Structure formats: C-alpha cells, structure tokens
C-alpha cells in the first residue's frame, strides 16, 4: 500500500503544489488522481518515486518511508509511464523495453527475450521489435512505454497522463488495453489525468484534487457521480453525471424486443413488407446490422436494396458483455433514427431492439430494488 501522510510540496517561490495530502492507495487497484491544471496531481505522482521531493510529510510504500532508499534504486522498482511515451529515440523498441532490467544488471540477451514477451503482452506485433520510436505511431509508442514500465515486473506502476497526447479513438483502445492488462497483472497503478471521463473509466478509486493541491473527494467512480461532496466536485464531474452514472448500472434487466430485419440485396417490395412501425434493420450475410430503411427512404429506391440506400444507424448496444450498461443501451436507443437501439451479441449479430422507455423502466426497477444509491 502507498500511503501519503500530511504530504506538502512547497516550491522555493512559495507556491504550494500539494497541501497536506492524506491518501491511502490500495494494492492491486487503479487509483486515479484527477483535477484541473495546477491541482498538484502530477507533483503528487512524482513524489512517489522521488522525482519531486516532498517538503514535509511522509510517503511510504508497504510501510517503508521512500526516503530510506536512494532515488535511482527506488525508481528501478517502480514502473513509470510518461506523457508522450518519452521513449529513447536512439534505441530500438526492444532495447527501450529492456532498459530497466539492464540497469538492474540483467544480461542483455535475457532482457531482450523478456522484452519480446512484453511486446506481445501490450498487443504489439513482434515485427516492431527492431524499429526505432520515430517509426511508430503515437499509440504504438505509448504501448511500448507501458511495456518498458512493466519490464522489471514492478508491483507499482505510475502513469502520468499517458494517453493524453493520442487521438480519441486510439485513446479508447489504449484504455481498454490497460484495463485488460490490469485484469491479468493486478498491479498497483497510480494514474494521473485531467480527463474525468478517463478517471471514471479506469479508476477503481478516484481522488479529485482542487487547485492548490487539496484533496476534494476520494471515492469510487459510482459514488463520485452519485454523491459529489460539494459544488466543485459536482462541477468537475460534469453536467452529464446523471447520464454518465448509467454507465455503472448493468443493462441485464432491459427487455430486448424482436426487430424486423431485411438482408441486403432484397427486393424493395419485400423490404417494404417487413417494416414495423415504418422501420426495418438491414443486415449482411452474418446478420450484422448495416443500417436502417423506412417507408420514406424506400420510396426512392427501385429493384434491389444496396448499401447506398440505407439510413445510417446509431450506436450499438452489445447485450451479452460487461460493457452492456444502461448508458450504452440508452445511447443506442437515442442515437437510432428509428428510436430503437439495435442490440447485438458479442459477435455483432442482431439480437433485437431496445427502446429508451425500456431502459428507463429498468432504471426504475433498479431504484426500487435499492441497486441505485439515491
């Protein structure tokens, strides 16, 4: 366990970056430090491996004061992932990953073998082993950064806004990958971000810091959304927190109704015959949804249904996975042109439809049974 006890960081010019921080970070969990810029989140993180020295107070790891160890030696036992990856441009991917084991005295060949395994662990093809960082995409560099931090198998991983410099789609992939990795590795991860959505997605617990380095609230994401302690936290957590808290509620109670489907390439007449309430879903050979047709949209089509004739659909609700929350179900319904969200199984084939009404009814049921904190 990492323990902050009354930790303060005051710079020479008098600015206080972190003010009497008390925080217990659980082993094997992801703890996210989040807050606006100037809240001392990165400073707090960097105090754990002594890249910044605390002015007063104590930080201990498993009961041992971090000041009892030399900084360089302490750091070799703590993984660190930095913003923009911070890879060494002059070393190949493999040698970047092997950095800490080599510092710890491992033979180069052994360290490289371990690095090759890690390349696979973080989901990169082994062809990248001999490349230089400049030859990788931002997302790939960040994965190498994670692999490098994991190379010596440290129990603690510090991550300093690691995904903030990549585009949203890649960021989403990297976040999923981190959650998958964490479910296998069970590291103690301290993660810094300014993005509350990222904090809520990744954190087992989230510490919200306010400007001036004071802890505002330290709770699970669900509690943070449901019961922010004050206006600052409520404002920081965001206006859509009611909607976003649906993301923590399972959609297993939402009823999935049958949905009319039409294979691509069917005649317009048969498509028209399948419409229910004016809409039908067009599917491909494997029954995966491609889009919608309506009475109106079909009125301009002749002969067979082609891809160009479809009205594009909304988001999909994956019903049989852990990702199937009330939020994804509701979003599927709201974003669909027909007002009916398409529910698919994990292979992507159509199971049926969900409506906003059925999602709200399921939320109501959850409230009544006490599943939702109120």
């Amino acid at each position, binding site marked *: 366990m990492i323990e902050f006890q009354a930790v303060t960081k005051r710079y020479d010019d008098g600015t206080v970056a972190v003010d009497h921080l008390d925080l217990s970070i659980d082993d094997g969990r992801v703890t996210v430090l989040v807050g606006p810029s100037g809240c001392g989140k990165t400073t707090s993180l960097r105090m754990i491996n002594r*890249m910044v020295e605390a002015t007063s107070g104590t930080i201990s790891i498993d009961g041992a004061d971090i000041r009892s160890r030399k900084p360089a030696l302490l*750091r070799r036992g703590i993984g660190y992932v*930095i913003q923009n990856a*911070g890879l060494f*441009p*002059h070393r190949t991917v493999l040698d970047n990953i092997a950095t800490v084991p080599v*510092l710890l005295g491992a033979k180069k060949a052994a360290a490289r073998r371990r690095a090759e395994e890690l390349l696979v662990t973080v989901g990169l093809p082994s062809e990248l082993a001999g490349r230089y960082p*400049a*030859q990788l995409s931002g997302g790939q560099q960040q994965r190498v950064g994670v692999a490098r931090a994991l190379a010596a198998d440290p129990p603690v991983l510090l991550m300093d806004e690691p995904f903030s410099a990549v585009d949203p789609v890649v960021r989403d992939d990297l976040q999923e990958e981190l959650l998958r990795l964490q479910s296998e590795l069970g590291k103690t991860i301290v993660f810094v971000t300014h993005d509350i959505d990222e904090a809520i997605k990744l954190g087992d617990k989230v510490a919200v810091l306010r400007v001036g380095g004071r802890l505002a609230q330290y709770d699970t994401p669900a509690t943070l959304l449901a019961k922010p302690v004050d206006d600052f936290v409520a404002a920081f957590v965001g206006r859509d927190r009611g909607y976003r808290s649906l993301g923590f509620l399972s959609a297993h109670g939402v009823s999935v109704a049958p949905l009319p489907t039409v294979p691509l390439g069917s005649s317009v007449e048969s498509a028209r015959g399948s419409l229910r309430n004016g809409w039908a879903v067009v599917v491909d050979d494997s029954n995966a949804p491609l889009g919608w047709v309506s009475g109106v949209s079909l009125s301009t089509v002749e002969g067979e249904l082609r891809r160009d004739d479809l009205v594009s659909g909304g988001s999909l609700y994956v019903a049989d996975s852990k990702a199937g929350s009330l939020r994804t179900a509701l979003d599927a319904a709201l974003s669909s042109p027909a007002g009916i969200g398409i529910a698919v199984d994990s292979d992507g084939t159509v199971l049926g439809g969900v409506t906003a009404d059925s999602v709200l009814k399921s939320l109501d049921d959850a409230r009544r049974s006490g599943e939702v904190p109120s």
Partner: protein
Amino acid sequence: MNWVLDHIPELLSASGDHLQLALLPVAVGLVVSLPLGWVANRWRVARAILVPVSGLLYTIPSLALFVIMPLVLGTRILDPINVQAALTVYTVALLVRSIADALAAVPESVIAAASAMGYRTGGRFFAVELPLAVPVLIAGVRVAAVSNISLVAVGQIIGVGGLGFFLLHGAQSSPPNYQEIVAGIVLIVLLALVVDGLLAFAGRAMTPWARKRAGVVAR
C-alpha cells in the same frame, strides 16, 4: 608534374604530419569540450559565460594565437605544440556551443523518463543524452577538423611542418615553383574532403536511428 613525381615520398610524409597536427587537437578539444558543454547546458550562468567566450576565442587570428602560445604555455617559440594547443582552442571554441545546444535539444520527456527508469545523472549522460547529441556533435567535429586542416598550413610560418611547407617553400623559390604550391593546395583540400567524408560516414554509422522517420520502414 615532374616536380610532383620526384617528390612523392616527401608529399606523403608531409600529409601524414599535417593530419596528425590537425586531428590530434580535434580529439583533445572534443574531450575538453564535453564537460564544458555539459556545464554550459546545466547552468544558465555558465552558458552565459562559456558560449560567448568560446565564440570570442574563435575570432582570434590563428597567427596571433600561434605566437601567443609560447607566452601562455612557456614553450619554445617554434615548438609544434604551440600550433596544436592553438588548434585545440579553436576546436573547443567550436564544440562547446554545439554540445551545449545538442544537449539542450534532448526532449524533456526523454530526460524525465530516463530519470524515472532509475538512471543516475552520470549514467543518463552517457547512455541517453550524449548518444542523442551525436548528430549535432559530429557536425561540429567536421567543421573543426576541416578548419584545423586548413589552419595547420598557417603554422608553417612558425615552422611546424606539414603541407604548408610546400606553399611557403614554393612561393619563396625564385622563380616561384607553382607545381609545388599547387600540389600543396590540392593535397590540403583533398585531406579536408577525405576527413570530412570519413567523419560524416562515422556519424551515420553511429546514429542509425536518426535516419529512420515515421513511415520509412527498414527492410
């Protein structure tokens, strides 16, 4: 061409002397500049002093520096060490700035990452910062080497040898021996080109990473 063909052994041996006179100062200058460049990059005050002073040193005319050296070093006026010491000064003048700039160009995130991995200051310098400085460093060394090869010829005025001998000797003969003068010039230029090419090649061999850019995949 007759003169040249008759004097090939002398020309070759003078070329060897010339190279040694020019390049030994480059090596010594590099060793001296590294810590100075590091200091200049590390402390702003040091940079504010070292970089302008080294730039100033480079503006001192070579002949003047050659004749001041005995006063500074306590050597005899015609000792070749005077020329080598002066050329070392020029090398340092060129390289201190290069090294300081090259070290300053290493991205902050790379240095922070190196510290976070557990490098100590010295280890980080040799394992991360210096290798990343090599492209700029080699560029500086190439300039210093070529400049020294040309300056050694001036040293002939205080009698150090090398290819400058043929320039002076040819000019002082009567009538002037143009074959001798041209042979000296051509050899000096040739030495400069060859040394510059070799250094460029060595630099590329040392920095395979610098040629790899996004999208360019080595097969």
